[in-house]
């Protein structure tokens, strides 16, 4: 399992306009949610707290980064960009389960204490998301090992040899 690491130097890959896009989009999504809540009520406004607007922008920027990196190496990079965005969206599925934990924890605790609700909900998001990610990695490793064990006897046995003896 590859370890989790923090690489501050990767921030240099981003361009100023990309950070501006994220800032403006984040601000716009928050204003939009506020407007929906004031016009349509708390329930419909609440739905938009999980709107994937930010994800759309960040996935597109990830694709651009990968294409730029591959073009510098003289390759097309389009497929690589799509695969990187697909990987990001697989991670977002787990993050969304964490968001469910965030919402449930917040709604249950906010009327008791507001600071506790924010801390408990954020911890619930982190715990569920990270646990989901670790579980997924573990399952993938086990599946890969099983596949390797199943393939190995056939690979070891040469043509004409009795393969059943190895299984």
């Amino acid at each position, binding site marked *: 399992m590859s370890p989790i690491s923090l690489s501050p130097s990767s921030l240099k890959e981003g361009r100023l306009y990309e950070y501006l896009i994220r800032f403006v989009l984040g601000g716009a999504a928050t204003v939009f949610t506020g407007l929906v809540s004031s016009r349509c009520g708390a329930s419909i406004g609440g739905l938009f707290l999980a709107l994937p607007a*930010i994800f759309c922008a960040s996935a597109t920027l990830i694709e651009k980064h990968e294409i730029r990196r591959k073009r510098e190496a003289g390759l097309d990079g389009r497929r690589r960009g799509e695969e990187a965005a697909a990987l990001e*969206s697989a991670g977002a599925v787990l*993050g969304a389960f964490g*968001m469910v934990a*965030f*919402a449930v924890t917040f709604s249950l605790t906010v009327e008791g204490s507001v600071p506790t609700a924010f801390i408990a909900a954020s911890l619930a998001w982190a715990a569920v998301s990270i646990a989901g990610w670790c579980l997924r990695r573990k399952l993938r490793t086990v599946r890969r090992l099983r596949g390797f064990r199943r393939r190995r006897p056939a690979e070891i046995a040469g043509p004409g040899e009795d393969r059943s003896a190895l299984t």
Partner: protein
Amino acid sequence: MTEYVVRFLVGGIVVSAFSMLGGMLRPKSFAGLFGAAPSVALATLGIAVYTHGAGYAARQTWAMTAGAVALAVYGGVVCHLLMRARLRVASATLLAVVVWLVVAFGLLAVAGGLT
């Protein structure tokens, strides 16, 4: 008007912070968790508690549960559109928003939140 300016600034700062953190993390699948971080929720709920009270924020997060389930479906659909249908990222992420809307409003309707 001031409320919306504050919303814009707080939302922009929180979303940028989460997205920068996600950009620094490796591997990519782990960084993807931050693509579904509750950044807009953190910014909005703080203002909601301050202006409307804790009960209003509790109602919002109850409905947010449906939106978050829809977000999980959305992520899966985007992943399949990119890997199997081989759509471009912009097309896949925008097309899947329709799925998010249908699932989110469908779940809220089933739970009686639209009445």
